[in-house]
């Protein structure tokens, strides 16, 4: 799936991979790629400003994590982030159900005959 198609769903993807626990930026990117089995093309450089935005709006919190001399920013969901993720899931399910019912070749019962 092309990066442009993914862009509108980036926030939901980032929140979803952070649901199990805190991760730093590179681990977030690899988690998205692993969970989509490489099907989602992500312009990964743009993930970092998106993480900053989600933190600014209170959906994530972050802290510095040191590994030797190397410092990484670790992100985790806030309570507001968990609620936003639940809303994203509900909206996505409603969307895919609506599109699926149009694309599905099976005849709709209301239009039979």
């Amino acid at each position, binding site marked *: 799936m092309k990066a442009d198609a993914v862009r509108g769903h980036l926030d939901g993807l980032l929140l979803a991979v952070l649901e199990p626990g805190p991760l730093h*930026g590179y681990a977030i990117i690899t988690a998205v790629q692993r969970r989509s089995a490489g099907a989602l093309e992500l*312009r990964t*450089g*743009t993930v970092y400003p998106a993480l900053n935005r989600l933190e*600014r709006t209170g959906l994530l919190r972050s802290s510095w994590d040191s590994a*030797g001399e190397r*410092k990484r920013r670790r992100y985790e969901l806030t309570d507001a982030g968990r609620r936003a993720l639940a809303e994203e899931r509900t909206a996505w399910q409603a969307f895919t159900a609506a599109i699926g019912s149009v694309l599905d070749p099976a005849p709709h019962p209301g239009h039979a005959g």
Partner: protein
Amino acid sequence: MSGAGRRTGPAGERPEEYADEYAAALASALRGPVRAKARLVAEIREGLADTVAAYADEGLPRDLAVRRAVREFGTVAEVAPACQRELTVAQVRHTARAVALAAPLPAVCWYLLLVMGHGSQLPLATRLVTLPLAGVAAAAALLATAALAATGPLARRLPTPRRLPRATAWAGTAAGVCLGVSALTLAASSPLSGNWPLVAPAGALAAALHTVVASSARACRDCARA
């Protein structure tokens, strides 16, 4: 660097070397608050170094690992606009905080002088100039507070207005001018006033705040144009 930071590609060159070049090019393409910019660029640098190292660990030659990593990451030209949008919002919040905190202070000083009964000891010209300026500064502070709300948690529900950076920059400029004129007026009238030990510090405070707010407004204008 040590540990993960010392991972080397097959050619023996550190993956950080290219990441450093990329980070320097990105930093020079971006405008915004120093700390926010440094943090964002540092995160991206670490992410790119990790990506190059991961490809090198798979056995790719360093040049190919770098090319793959940049293709996946996006070039500086592709990544910079998203970074600049976020840094512009960070600058808007920086300027809005400065205006919201600093701009009401002349009005507060004016109110305290009145409450303490020293207002009438100021020359009439000072009162005529300072009072409307305090009003304009207070209006700028209100706009700045709205900008902080619009770019904070409210941004989850509402899109951030496109013209907000420019509006915040102008609010900052207006507040800076008000603070500067207030400082000059208070400094000039200090020897003439009946209570200079109160008026002179108020003028000095206004001058200091003018410097902070005016420089932040200038930075916000730069970001709005970027």
